[in-house]
């Protein structure tokens, strides 16, 4: 279904936010939001990124779009067959790039300016890039509205006249206005009720099919990510700990954290109450992460080596990457097994 050309490549991306203190704003430490994150996204696929709050997934999206400058690393984008580094672009080039990569935010309330009409909101990117104006702009916006399942009668309304789901549709229309190739979806359905969530997921899937979009889909909800993604990356404390096509990742995880996440996610199958793996403790402070494998403080399988040595990022089977010292020896349980053992 997907072509195999790589459209987006992230190499050893690191972002540390300095912590300032005192009158002279001395740097006293840093929040290590992203550490050596590497992955690549193929054309027209959906790469899911899943993790708990504070794992750095939102920072990842924003650094990739160069909303913040990274501490180190690079993000390469395939622009007409040429891999260009997002961080070395000049202003004008960056503006051109922005037409190709767009974003959808979590909170449809905050992501739409309440003082602008739907026409102004969806038309804004077109105006910024001088693509269309006047009557042409209007007809472009109408097309976009139809595409996301809204009525063209809504053109002159303000965001406060819409429900959460409709607002998210407006946000999607804005993201698609410039006909991007890649859309970063930052928890696009987390703020919505279940029934609305399903509408938006279907919409995103249809749009992907029709327009040949590539998605980077960020969420904390494992079932949503599995549903929509071709491949899934699991993040913990600023690093990717496992990356694999979704089926093997959910059926046979190779990192203890993935196993624990799968186990902790409640499912609606009332026939089987599963045996949970309860992770002890909480997320360590990202400004002072533990040495060695960052997960060792909560890992039930941890050994001495985990406390001292950072595990290597290895391809454990074709397309299945993980960073765990014991990945080869552990028999971890996936979704199916978790259910039946209860």
């Amino acid at each position: 279904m997907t072509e195999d050309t790589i459209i987006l490549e992230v190499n050893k991306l690191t972002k540390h936010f300095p912590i300032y203190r005192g009158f002279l704003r001395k740097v006293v430490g840093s929040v290590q939001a992203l550490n050596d994150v590497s992955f690549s996204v193929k054309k027209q696929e959906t790469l899911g990124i899943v993790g708990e709050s504070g794992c750095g997934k939102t920072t990842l999206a924003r650094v990739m779009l160069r909303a913040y400058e990274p501490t180190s690393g690079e993000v390469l984008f395939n622009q007409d067959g040429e891999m260009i580094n997002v961080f070395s672009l000049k202003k004008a080039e960056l503006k051109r790039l922005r037409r190709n990569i767009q974003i959808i935010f979590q909170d449809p309330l905050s992501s739409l300016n309440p003082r602008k009409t739907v026409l102004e909101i969806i038309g804004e990117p077109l105006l910024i890039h001088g693509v269309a104006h006047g009557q042409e702009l209007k007809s472009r916006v109408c097309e976009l509205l139809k595409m996301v399942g809204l009525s063209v009668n809504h053109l002159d309304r303000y965001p406060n006249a819409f429900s959460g789901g409709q607002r998210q549709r407006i946000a999607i229309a804005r993201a698609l206005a410039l006909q991007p190739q890649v859309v970063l979806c930052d928890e696009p359905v987390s703020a919505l009720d279940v029934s609305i969530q399903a509408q938006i997921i279907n919409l995103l899937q249809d749009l992907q099919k029709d327009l040949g979009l590539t998605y980077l889909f960020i969420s904390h909800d494992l079932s949503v990510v599995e549903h929509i993604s071709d491949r899934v990356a699991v993040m913990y404390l600023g690093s990717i700990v496992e990356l694999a096509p979704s089926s093997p990742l959910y059926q046979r995880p190779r990192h203890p954290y993935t196993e624990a996440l799968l186990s902790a996610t409640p499912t609606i199958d009332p026939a089987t109450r599963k045996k949970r793996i309860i992770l002890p403790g909480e997320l360590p402070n990202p400004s002072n992460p533990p040495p060695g494998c960052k997960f060792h403080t909560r890992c039930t399988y941890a050994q001495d080596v985990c406390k001292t040595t950072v595990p290597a990022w290895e391809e454990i089977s074709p397309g299945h990457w993980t960073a765990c010292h014991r990945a080869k020896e552990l028999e971890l349980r996936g979704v199916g097994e978790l259910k039946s053992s209860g």
Partner: protein
Amino acid sequence: MQDFKGTAQRITDLYNQQDLSDESIAQQMLQSEQTAEATSQWRLMWRKFKRNRTAVIGGVVVLLFYLTALFGDFVAPYSLEDRMTQYSYLPPQKIRFIADGRFQPHVYGLKSGRDPLTLQRTYVPDPEHKIPIRFFVEGSPYKLMGLFPTNRHLFGVEEGIVSILGTDGQGRDMFSRIIKGSQISLTVGLVGVALSLLIGAVLGVASGYYGGWVDNLVQRGIEIVRSFPPIPLWMALTAALPQHWPPLLTYFVITVILSLIGWTWLARQLRGKVLAIREEDFIMAARLAGASDRWIIFRHLIPATFSHIVVISTLSMPSMILAESSLSFLGLGIRPPLTSWGVLLKQAQNTQVLLLYPWLMIPGFFVAISILAFNFMGDGLRDAADPYTV
């Protein structure tokens, strides 16, 4: 009871079959959802403001005050320097409306004499001598709004004196002077706020939007300015104005001094608002769509802060008016021959004079009413300014 499982299966099938393509969803949504009418920010604000009755009253009073000030020469029966020495320290006259059984506003003529003990001049109204009040009478010439020369006044008398708020020691009509004084007192606030706004808005928005060292610098500056109590600092600064300066220059420099201190509050408030708005995702969305700083500031930030600027300016008017009148009251502000409410009040500073002629403090009530009106209006505006957070 029929086969309930069959029914449930039928519903499930309907969900599955129904190819809920987006178009059909849109159709259904149009049927099932009531969407509110298109309402812009300003309409929402106005609707909310209207609901607050005291705020509307405050607004009307403010409007009235400014209109009166604008047409001051017309409304006032006498000019600023019309001295009627034979009527010095005349207490406020009572206006009577009915004469000889019909409506005819008039005042009584006055017989003056001297108190045998204190030797103060006294006035005795003479009920027999009715002086009718005429409207649109001719009086001292002036230029309406500084443009059209005329000598018509809203009301006046053809003989004697009409002085509804009394006169001062030189026989000048307090009412006329208060109205003329409002021109200064109310514009000091306006000019002062405008200047504060200019400084405060630029620095506040810059400080909030750019953050970092710009913010740091502005904040330190504000802290230093604010480490002085305002009134004493104003006093010290205005005391430094040379006595020989022309009054108009003094007036302008005083507004500058007032706004030099007033901007800090404005800047802080705006910075807070900008900081909050800057964090909204729609700003990030615009930036990631390729918008420049200029685009964001002019298309998003300023429109979003505009309503707050209106509110903050309204709410800082009272302190400007108060500061001017306090300073002039102390003799450090506006200097005669220019007249403001504070200048008029200066005569009341002398305890003995005040106790004998208490109506000299009436200008103070105008200060209070204008401040009250601004406060009411500003309060209503503040509640209405954020129509999106209920």
